[in-house]
């Protein structure tokens, strides 16, 4: 008797807990890849938007036309545009009010930019924790499935009189599929997590720098 060792057969022959583990891991892998693609596309867009905005910003002499243009845009401003819009709106509003000291105007506009920055940070960091979780727990889940499968095959081995390697081998192979799946899900997630967190960090640094530069410009205007 030669046991069927095809991949499909291995999975369908596995015990229920092992199958459950495999299903979980497949779902985790699909979801983490979904996140990876989404995040990649999004980060690329944000980076491009920041590049083009910065180029535009530094080539202008007057700030108000830029502000009106952003205000008129159909979609909601994000990234540097959001920071710029928030800071400039507050600045103009406080200046129009009159009777506000230049330092207070500066403080108000900086506060507005800070708030926008925090909102942006929140947006950028969503889903990253999911990738981290998948990356760190998938191997353990897979290992659990494997241990369970091996346990079962040894238990079955104890019931027979003449034990041979061909009796345990299918069970162990089955069980090891779970570990393979766990690693399959975890490795890309860990790589993507590291990559994205450094990308997000860099983007946030750029935003921070932009806030400082823009504050300097506003400061000059407020005290002129």
């Amino acid at each position: 008797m030669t046991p069927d060792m095809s991949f499909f057969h291995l999975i369908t022959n596995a015990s229920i807990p092992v199958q459950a583990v495999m299903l979980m891991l497949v779902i985790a892998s699909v979801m983490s890849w979904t996140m990876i693609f989404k995040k990649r596309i999004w980060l690329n867009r944000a980076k491009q938007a920041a590049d083009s905005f910065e180029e535009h910003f530094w080539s202008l002499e007057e700030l108000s036309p830029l502000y009106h243009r952003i205000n008129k845009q159909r979609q909601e401003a994000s990234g540097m545009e959001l920071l710029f819009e928030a800071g400039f709106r507050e600045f103009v509003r406080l200046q129009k009010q009159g009777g506000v000291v230049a330092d207070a105007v500066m403080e108000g506009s900086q506060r507005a930019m800070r708030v926008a920055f925090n909102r942006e940070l929140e947006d950028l960091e969503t889903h990253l924790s999911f990738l981290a979780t998948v990356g760190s727990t998938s191997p353990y889940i897979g290992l659990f499935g494997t241990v369970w499968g091996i346990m079962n095959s040894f238990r079955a081995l104890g019931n027979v009189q003449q034990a041979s390697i061909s009796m345990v081998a299918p069970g162990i192979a089955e069980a090891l599929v779970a570990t393979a799946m766990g690693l399959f899900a975890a490795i890309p997630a860990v790589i993507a997590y590291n990559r994205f967190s450094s990308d997000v960090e860099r983007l946030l640094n750029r935003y921070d720098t932009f806030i400082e530069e823009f504050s300097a410009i506003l400061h000059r205007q407020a005290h002129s």
Partner: protein
Amino acid sequence: MQFLTLRSLLYSLALHAVVISALVANFDAERTPVFKPQPQENIVEAVTVDEQEVEKEIQRLREQEQEKQRAMEQKLKDLEQQASAVEKRRKEEEQKKQAAERKRKEEEQRKAQAEQQRKEEERRTATERRRIEQDKLKAQAELKRIEEENRKAQAEQARLEQEKRKAEAERKRQEEEKRKQAEAAAQRKQLAQEQRAKDKITLQNIVAEIYQVVAGNFNKTGLPRGLECTLAVQTVPGGEVISVTVSKTSGNEVFDRRAVTAVEKASPLPLPADPATLDRLRLRKFNFVFKPEE
């Protein structure tokens, strides 16, 4: 946002489908390695042998061997002879070569001499050519220098002319200026005269006014008539009187004192408010002759 998620999910599913199908295909292709025994061939061939024939054969082989050795020795001798002949030939050859070498060296020496001569000749011609060229260069330089001098002289002339023109212009300008200055001076003089005339009238008016004010404040009861005194008055712009002193007494003490009082009372005096005018008319500090009318 929703669209992005959906797109990413599709990418993810496609990736999984590809990777899993590749893995499965690989896995299934590799499974159940079968061990097949290979047919082997090792058949032994056996042969029977006769003892006598072997002996004969050995004898034959030995004779053959001896014969071969003899032939070999003969060949060796031949070869040695040949070698000595070759050696001899080689020596002759060498002698010939040496002679040729000597000849070649002589030839080379001759050639070297010829070469040297040729070089000497060349050097001579080169120096000659250089000398000529240098002369030519010198002549050109000289020509250039002369031209340069000519040019300089022309420039100098032009410069001189230019300067002359400038001096002329300067002279004219100065004359013009002088004329203008004179005109201005004349005008100023006229203006000053006019001003002086005007000032005179103004001063007369002011003095009359002051006199009137002071006389209005003067108490002449019980004083003899015909007295007159001079008072030194000091004022500030606005007409305020700072001090009044008697510079020339009338002889009557009471008259003098009353005149001083009258001026003090008349303060502020009707003087022009403008300090410049005040200065011009010298009214900051002035002598005032007081002589009450009958």
